C-alpha cells in the first residue's frame, strides 16, 4: 500500500509509549502496517498510512493507542453532517 496515500498530517492517531506493554496486538490488527515492534514496545513506523479504522485502539489492553475511528467515505460523512434522525448508511 505504499503507493496509496491521501492527505498528510490529518490522522487522529495518538500513541503513549509509556503505557505500551508490547503485546503486539496493534501490529497484528493494523491493515496498513502502521506499527512495528521494537525492543518489546510498539512503535509507529508509518503514521501517514493510518486510515483511522480504530482496530488498534479497540484492542489495545492498556489504552496506549487512541484514535477517533470512523468510516472514510464521502457519502457517509455528508450524512453525519445532516440533522440527526437520518440514519447514515453506506458500504
Amino acid at each position, binding site marked *: 500500500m505504499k*503507493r496509496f496515500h491521501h492527505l498528510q498530517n490529518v490522522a487522529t492517531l495518538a500513541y503513549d509509549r509509556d503505557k505500551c506493554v508490547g503485546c503486539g496486538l496493534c501490529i497484528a490488527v493494523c491493515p496498513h*502496517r502502521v506499527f512495528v515492534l521494537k525492543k518489546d514496545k510498539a512503535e509507529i513506523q508509518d503514521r501517514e498510512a493510518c486510515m483511522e*479504522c*480504530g482496530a488498534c485502539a479497540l*484492542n489495545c489492553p492498556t489504552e496506549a493507542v487512541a484514535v477517533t475511528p470512523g468510516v*472514510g*467515505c464521502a*457519502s457517509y460523512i455528508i450524512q453525519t453532517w445532516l440533522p440527526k434522525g437520518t440514519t447514515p448508511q*453506506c*458500504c
Partner: protein
Amino acid sequence: MDGFITTPSGRVPRVKAHPTLWDRLGDCRARLGLDRNNYTVNPGLYAVGDPSPDAPVVVTANYKLTFDTVRFALRGRNAWILVTDTRGINVWCAGGKGSFSAEAVALQVRKAGLDRVVSHRRLILPQLSANGVRLRDVRKATGFEAVLGPIRAEDLSRFLDQGPDDAMREVTFTFMERLAVVPVELVLGWKMVLAVLAAAAVLSLIGTELALGAVFQRWILAATATLFGLLSGAIAFPLLLPRLPTRLFSLAGAGLAAIPALALPLLFPSPAWPALVGVGLWTMTVSAWTALNFTGSTPYTSPSGVEKEMRAAIPTLAGSTVLSVICFIWGNLQ
C-alpha cells in the same frame, strides 16, 4: 445447501464449496449494486466438507458475497463457518459500524451451542473485523479464544496450514480490485445522472430558438457532458488512481475530465462558446464529485482526510455547478 451434519447441538447445514450458476448470478447482481443491500445468508453455524469436532471454526459476516468468498476459499477442506448477523454488510464496514462486534460473535457461539459441536476453544476471525471486535471480549463472553485470521479469504488455506505472515496482514488495492468496484460506482452514479438529465431538459428549454430540434440539441450537449463526467470519475479515475499526480480525489477527478471536456467542442461545433465552456466545466464537476465519492470504495482514506478534502471541495463544486449553469444558459441565449 448440501445436506446436514448431525452434532450434539443439533443438525448443522452443510454448504457446497463450489459456486453454482445461481451463486454467480447473485454475485454479479450484488457487484452491480442491484440488490446488494438485501443479499444475506441466515446467521448461524455451517459446515464445509465433513468437519470433525477438532476442525477449525472460521467466523464471517452474513453478506452473501462475503460468505460465498469464505466457503469457496475453504474448498477441499473440512471446516466450520460461524456466520454473525451483520445485517448483510461486509466484514470491514460492519466492524466500523458496530454490528460485527464481540457480542455479535458471542451470540452466535451460544445460539449454535458451539462448545458442544467442537472440542477445541478457538475461533478464527477475519483481521478486518478487529475494528469492531475486541478480541479479548470474545474470550470473556464465550471461553473461545479469538485468533486473528487473514484479511483476504483467499489466504485462509495458507493461514490454516502455516499460520499468519506479513503479506496476509496488509490490505491491497490492485488494478483488479479497483476494476471490481467500477460497476457499482457506475450504477450508483447513474441515479445522479438521471436527475441531472431531467434538470438539463428543463434548462435546455431556455434559448433563442424554441423548436423541438433546437431544445434537443442543447439537451444532448448537456447529457453528453454529464456522461463524460461519470465515465471519467467512475472508470478512468479508479483505474488510473496510483498514477495520478495529486492526492486530492476531487482535483484528480476534475483534471482527468479536462480531456473529455476539451473533446466536447470537437463533437459539438455549433453551440456558442459560453455554452461549451459551461458543459466542459460541468464534465469536470461531475468527474470531481464522482471521484470524491470513490473515497468510500478505497481501503486507505481516513475519515479525517476525507472530511478535510470535502470541506474544501464541496463549496468549490457547488460554485462550479452554478457557473456551469450560468454559462450554459448564457451561451444558449446568444
